[in-house]
């Protein structure tokens, strides 16, 4: 069962189409990275998923239930952090969580537990307004996970965190995922998403241009292989005949485009069969950032 399912979700403001036929399929217990440029429709999607924008078409299903019909019940199972963290400035860190405890009735230990999880226990008596930006972000995450939700919807959760904070939060998300939580997150830090996401959705101009597993996305593009050989000219000729696009030949080095692991194995085999000595091989996979830019460019013609 999908944790989040949308069926041709569309949204307009006036005559302007913000989202067009979005069919999100976020698998249960996965970590789904939602990517898109500024203004692509990410935040609108997230607000719709949380019921902060009205979807009259009954196109959103969370944990198998229609959001339109089971709004409050769904909110009990979903934690969220949208754009900037929300918290009550006049309350302390502890009081902000106590406020949620009154609603969710999780008990006193849960507050301490969550404060430990986000490493805010030393700041619990501080007014939320007096926290640093990174600490505020941690408080936002603490408020999102307080009620032990099955699904976390996080919009830019790593904003304002220092490198150590980013690593800690990444580990926290992994830990929550291992406990069986589904995490839907958008982030501009693509390298972080690449490290953590199991599934990726890419939106551009209000339309989904890719949705699938991270491996499916990374497998869509070729990788560059740099080979240092005893005879670069012969190697280049051989590989060209074998159908590999040669990108560059330079001294004893040949740079080739390789599609997948089978092609890579075939490349090595043909060099060895022709008794061309291989001194070194480096494989440069394209990272998520390059793939993202390529996909956006091709979507825009």
């Amino acid at each position: 069962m999908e944790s989040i399912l949308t069926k041709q979700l569309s949204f307009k403001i006036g005559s302007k189409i913000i989202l067009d036929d979005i069919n999100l399929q976020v698998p249960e217990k996965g970590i789904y990275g939602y990517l898109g440029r500024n203004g692509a429709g990410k935040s609108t999607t997230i607000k719709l998923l949380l019921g902060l924008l009205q979807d009259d078409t009954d196109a959103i299903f969370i944990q198998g239930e229609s959001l339109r019909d089971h709004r409050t019940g769904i909110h009990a199972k979903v934690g969220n952090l949208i754009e900037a963290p929300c918290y009550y400035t006049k309350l302390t860190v502890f009081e902000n969580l106590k406020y949620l405890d009154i609603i969710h009735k999780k008990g006193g230990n849960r507050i301490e537990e969550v404060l430990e999880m986000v490493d805010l226990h030393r700041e619990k008596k501080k007014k939320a307004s007096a926290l640093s930006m990174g600490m505020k972000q941690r408080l936002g995450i603490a408020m999102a996970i307080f009620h032990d939700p099955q699904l976390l919807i996080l919009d830019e959760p790593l904003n304002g965190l220092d490198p150590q904070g980013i690593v800690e939060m990444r580990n926290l998300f992994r830990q929550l995922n291992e406990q069986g939580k589904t995490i839907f997150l958008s982030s501009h830090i693509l390298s972080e998403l690449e490290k953590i996401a199991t599934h990726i959705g890419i939106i551009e101009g209000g339309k989904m241009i890719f949705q699938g597993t991270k491996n499916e996305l990374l497998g869509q593009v070729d990788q560059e292989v740099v080979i240092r050989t005893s005879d670069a000219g012969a190697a280049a000729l051989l590989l060209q005949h074998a159908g590999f696009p040669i990108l560059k030949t330079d001294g004893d080095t040949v740079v080739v485009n390789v599609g997948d692991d089978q092609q890579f194995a075939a490349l090595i085999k043909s060099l060895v069969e022709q008794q061309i000595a291989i001194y070194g091989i480096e494989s440069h996979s394209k990272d998520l950032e390059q793939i993202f830019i390529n996909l956006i460019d091709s979507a825009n013609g």
Partner: protein
Amino acid sequence: MANTLYTAFLSEKYKLLRNRGIFGVLIVPTLLVFAIAGYISYDIVNSGGPTAIPNPWKVLLGRYVFQFFYLLYPILVALFVFACCDVEYKNNNYKILFTIPISKTHIFFSKTIFILLTLLFSLLFAYTAFLMSGYLLSQLYPVLGFQNYDFREVIFYTFLKLFVTLSAIAMIQLALSLLFRSFIYPIGISMFMLAFSVLVAQKSFSDFIPYTGAYNALMNILSENDSFTRLDNSNILMIVLFMLISFYLFGRKGQF
């Protein structure tokens, strides 16, 4: 988790009671009554001793207290109601409010009940302070004659009618605070309406302006009027009307 009005009320109470604006509306009128009683004592000492006054509850304590109340209370109520909405405006906290597992209807009515209960307690404290001040003055200066008049009924109805008036004003201010995010508009409108209501207080149409009720509280105590009038009935209707308008505006607030 319980999606009940009671849970919503407990959470609202917890959050809002940690706001200084709330304590202002609760305590300032009470402190003011005691301050006026202190001023009366100071004046007596400075003028060489007390002299007998016909009905000092009305002419002395009531006149001073309600002269302040009719100007102070509506402004305090406007500030307090705005403070209750402002906690959600800051940081765009409506995002918290509308993603907790409690229905918007429960959240709205818990806020409304909290506002009305705070007003009720504020007036109860002020009412108690008023009676206590009169009693203390009667003990300190028996010559003034506080003990010679039983004015409790008029005082009770004056405070009751003031509660109705302030509840109507609170609901109007709630609608304005939900409509305008900026502090200027709800507070500005309340000040304008207060000044306007004093100017037109003698006109018959002023019965339909709840802000007139604050000024009328002073007139009620001076004229010993303890009956419900058209203004009071109109104010009860205004409470319901503006509560419904506020409910509609609150529902629309969820649409970011």
